[in-house]
């Protein structure tokens, strides 16, 4: 059995410095809190695409940190022409106006085409398949009404500190918006 070593003085110089530094550290963090308090907010922001700025470059499909992008195509039906020949649905020169795979523009066949009445068809996006490539958006914008557009689907998005797509978006279309209104939908006033 070893004898215990002698006790050192209760408060050494170092301990004193440390205590001082700790107080200083806590004060600093308190100060930081004070400065940040007005800037901090429970109303966190999320990333969203301004459809008016999107240039449909295809990066939304390739740059998201998720394998299947959190960006999806959204459809404002009130803008839609319900076209028989939807340029968002069909390749530029389809063999026929039917749902055959080779006629579909969407690389993942994420758009559902349903007959409503002559000559109108409804187009709906299957979010689970859409990869946000904006191909249909380009087709719809170019010839049609622009009722298809991209949005960050908030249930998929991880809300990265810096959106990996927004960083390289050529249209500078990404911005942070308040979490309680997390979409920039196209809407009409009629």
């Amino acid at each position, binding site marked *: 059995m070893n004898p215990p070593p002698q006790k050192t003085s209760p408060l050494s110089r170092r301990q004193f410095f440390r205590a001082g530094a700790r107080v200083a550290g806590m004060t600093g963090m308190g100060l930081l809190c004070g400065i940040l308090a007005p800037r901090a907010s429970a109303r966190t922001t999320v990333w969203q695409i301004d*459809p*008016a700025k999107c240039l*449909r*470059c*295809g*990066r939304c*499909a*390739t740059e998201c940190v998720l394998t299947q992008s959190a960006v999806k195509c959204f459809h404002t039906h009130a*803008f*839609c*022409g*319900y*076209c*028989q*020949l*939807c*340029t968002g649905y069909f390749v*530029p*020169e389809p063999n026929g106006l039917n749902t055959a795979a080779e006629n579909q*523009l969407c*690389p993942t066949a994420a758009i559902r085409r349903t007959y409503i009445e002559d*000559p109108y068809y409804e187009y709906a996006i299957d979010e689970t398949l859409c990869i946000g*490539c*904006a*191909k249909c958006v*380009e*087709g*719809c*914008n*170019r*010839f*049609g*009404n*622009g*009722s298809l557009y991209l949005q960050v689907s908030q249930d998929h998005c991880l809300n990265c500190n810096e959106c990996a797509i927004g960083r*390289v978006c050529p249209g500078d279309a990404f911005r942070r918006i308040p979490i309680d209104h997390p979409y920039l939908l196209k809407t009409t006033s009629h």
Partner: protein
Amino acid sequence: MSELSQPTRVTRRRFLWQGIAGASVLGVMGGLAVRAVRSRQGAEDRAPNPFAYEMGHFEQTDASLIAYERVAGFRCPRPDPRRLTFDARGRLCLAAGNYVSLLDTAGATLSEIALPGPARALAAASDGTLYVGLRQQILAFDAQGQRRATWDPPPGKPWLTGLAVSETDLFAADAGNRVIHRYDRSGKPLGRIGERNADRNVAGFVLPSPFLDVELHPDGLLRVNNPGRHRVEAYTVDGHFELAWGKATAAIEGFCGCCNPINLAVLPDGRCVTCEKGLPRVKVYDLHGEFESVVAGVEAFPENAKAGAGDGMTDGVKAGLDAAVDATGRIYVLDMVTGDVHVMANKPGQALAG
């Protein structure tokens, strides 16, 4: 004992050596960082979009089909130009924003008429009266530019996009109600043309976007575009459907996209000039509705081709073309995106036989 336990046992030589090693590690890392940043705008920025919407060869026009050349041109005096037409005195009437500008054929402004709202339709009668279609209303101006009448809006959800006038009647294309209204010259409604009616063999207008134009043809029939069905239709003034021509294809002989043509003009000899959006192009169709020649192809309107049709302004138009024909058969083409008017004339010696 290990070195780690005695970080203070440092000689000058070792100190220098470690310093150099440390500095070079830092230097290499820094250099790598700088290089990484430098090459940031790397190949990926220049790689084409793997999901590009490819129109491919449809964006090029076969030069041998182009029968017109640009002989003159000018810029619209006002922003947001929408329509143009010629009045009986040969002046060019141009609806832009809340104005109608009257121009000479070289583009100099002769006079202007201020409007209470943006105009989307124009028609000039032979007596000098100018009819202007606002979104919901038709206004009539005399040759001096004084407003003579303001007609009641048609019932329903009117969205007027085209006008045509004869000696006795005025025809108003109402895209909102998907119908052509027939009025007498005083504004009294006389009939509705082109409404879906299986008994009269009228299929009805399919209008995904507000583009419905009506023109009077020398044969006495109306020519109306039906963009959703990719064709031009002919009706008698009483609303009998007579004929239709046109097919849906992005190829040069047809009408591209979901809904084209958007605007029409008629040459003195009755051939039809069509304007398209999406693939902006102006073409001439003969009396039987067969494709004849190209006035101006996609190459002539690069900005317009880029703009995209749909993301519209308040009148639902962002891209598009309009055309008007003067007495000599020259075609004035309005590019709504750039605000340019191109004066197109037959290429010498290339006038194709109609």
